[in-house]
């Protein structure tokens, strides 16, 4: 098992597709979530990945409201040796992962080849996700029987969204690059 503290950074809004987010949020340069605890465990092809971060005002229900945004976190891994982390992959250099949202029963499988290209799909069999908010912290644990890309490259990236700070999409706190997990 490997435990590490990740000092998160604000995802750069200057890179966001379209003209609005990059200008409207150009002052968003500080990470809303300063750090996250990452715990990873690998046994053969099996993986257990746990992310823990402070969330003073958790948002886990946005139903019947227009201006609430849910807490969330995602784990991304590269599928090629040179898949860039900061742009969530690139053409033919995909990243893939899992996206958990506090208001959903099940996380999504995600895949992207660049900013704005993320596709969500139902989680495949073999995944187990547990989430708990207690004492001002979210603890989200993902387990899988096999994650081929992670087995191969042994690195991942973490993203955290604080719903109470209206974070969504490209407004998020992220690990400062790929993080080695073995």
């Amino acid at each position, binding site marked *: 098992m490997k435990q590490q503290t990740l000092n998160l950074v604000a995802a750069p809004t200057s890179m966001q597709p379209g003209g609005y987010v990059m200008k409207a949020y150009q002052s968003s340069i500080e990470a809303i979530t300063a750090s996250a605890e990452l715990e990873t465990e690998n046994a053969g092809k099996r993986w257990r990945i746990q992310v823990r971060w402070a969330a003073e005002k958790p948002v886990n229900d946005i139903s019947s409201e227009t201006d609430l945004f849910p807490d969330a976190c995602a784990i991304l891994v590269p599928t090629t040796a040179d898949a860039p982390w900061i742009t969530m992959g690139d053409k033919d250099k995909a990243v893939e992962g899992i996206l958990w949202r506090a208001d959903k029963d099940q996380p999504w499988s995600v895949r992207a080849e660049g900013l704005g290209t993320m596709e969500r799909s139902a989680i495949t069999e073999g995944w187990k996700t547990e989430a708990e908010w207690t004492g001002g912290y979210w603890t989200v644990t993902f387990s899988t029987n096999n994650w081929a890309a992670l087995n191969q490259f042994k690195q991942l990236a973490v993203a955290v969204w604080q719903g109470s700070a209206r974070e*969504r999409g490209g407004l998020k706190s992220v690990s400062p690059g790929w993080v080695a997990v073995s």
Partner: protein
Amino acid sequence: MRYEVTTPKRQVAMVLDLNKCLGCHTCSVACKKLWNTDSGTDYTYWNNVETHPGRGFPADWQQTGGRTATGDVKQGKVPNLDTEYGRAWQFNHKNVIATDASSKKKDWLRPKGDPSWGPNWDEDEGTGTYPQDNHYFYLPRLCNHCAEPACLDACPRKAIYKRDEDGIVLVNQDRCHGYRFCVEACPYKKVYFDHERQVAAKCIFCMPRIEEEVAPACARQCPGRLRFVGYRDDEDGPIHKLVEKYKVAIPLHPEYGLKPNVFYVPPMSPPKLDDKGRPTGESRIPMSYLEGLFGKEVHRSLEILHAERAKKKQGQSSELMDLLIAYDWNDNFKLDNPKAREVI
């Protein structure tokens, strides 16, 4: 990086003559019954009619959009369902039905809860002092299907696009992830959030009707005959005449810089009265207020309207006045589409 917006082959557009709007809300009801009765969109009005001066719908929308008065991007706001949109009312029908004449405690039909805002909340309030200068007018609003849509430029997922065949701005809800940057960015606040399906939703200019040469429901159902629909490049159509030829139809908040394709014929108003009840010659709706909504072009538009109305009064002909009067309702709509099916 700002998206390039390709100029569509054609652009469908609408003109609304505010001198004829009677505030009946038939347009809003026609639109709503057609497109928005689901629980996730029950609070939305793709078309609404608001009283001006007033806070509008959503409340104070002119202050919460993603554009400054000089057209620069600023951070907008996603309106709150209770305080700015107004949650769709639920009524106590069962209690009222259960009440009979013998009941000691009679209940009356009323919304549940304690609503504090909603569409049309400040209807007919207006401003001013009776009888000197009290005034208000109705402003029907819908998506402007802008040439440079703020909503389109706000979506990091490119889920919003402008149709090439008619310039209608649409949301691809399969791509939308419900981030609501579009809701924030639109300075007209005409993109909504379907909170049940968690996607953005907006006016589609009754696209399936347009394809069959039928005007949008809001326009067809308008008893005041104040709406005109057509293509901007059709020189024989009402849009070209009102916008380009006579230049009496002007966009709402042109300073946002989004080049709307919905235009308004601004409201003429009776004069203010002095202390003795005599007309002063000064417009009852202050020109500064109209300028705040429609920009400086409103002066020229009103001058033309007054001049053409004077001609008509003197028995002279006026193509403009005849068009605005809508003697023949069919002239309000011209949507020739060679690809349209023959509707029998």
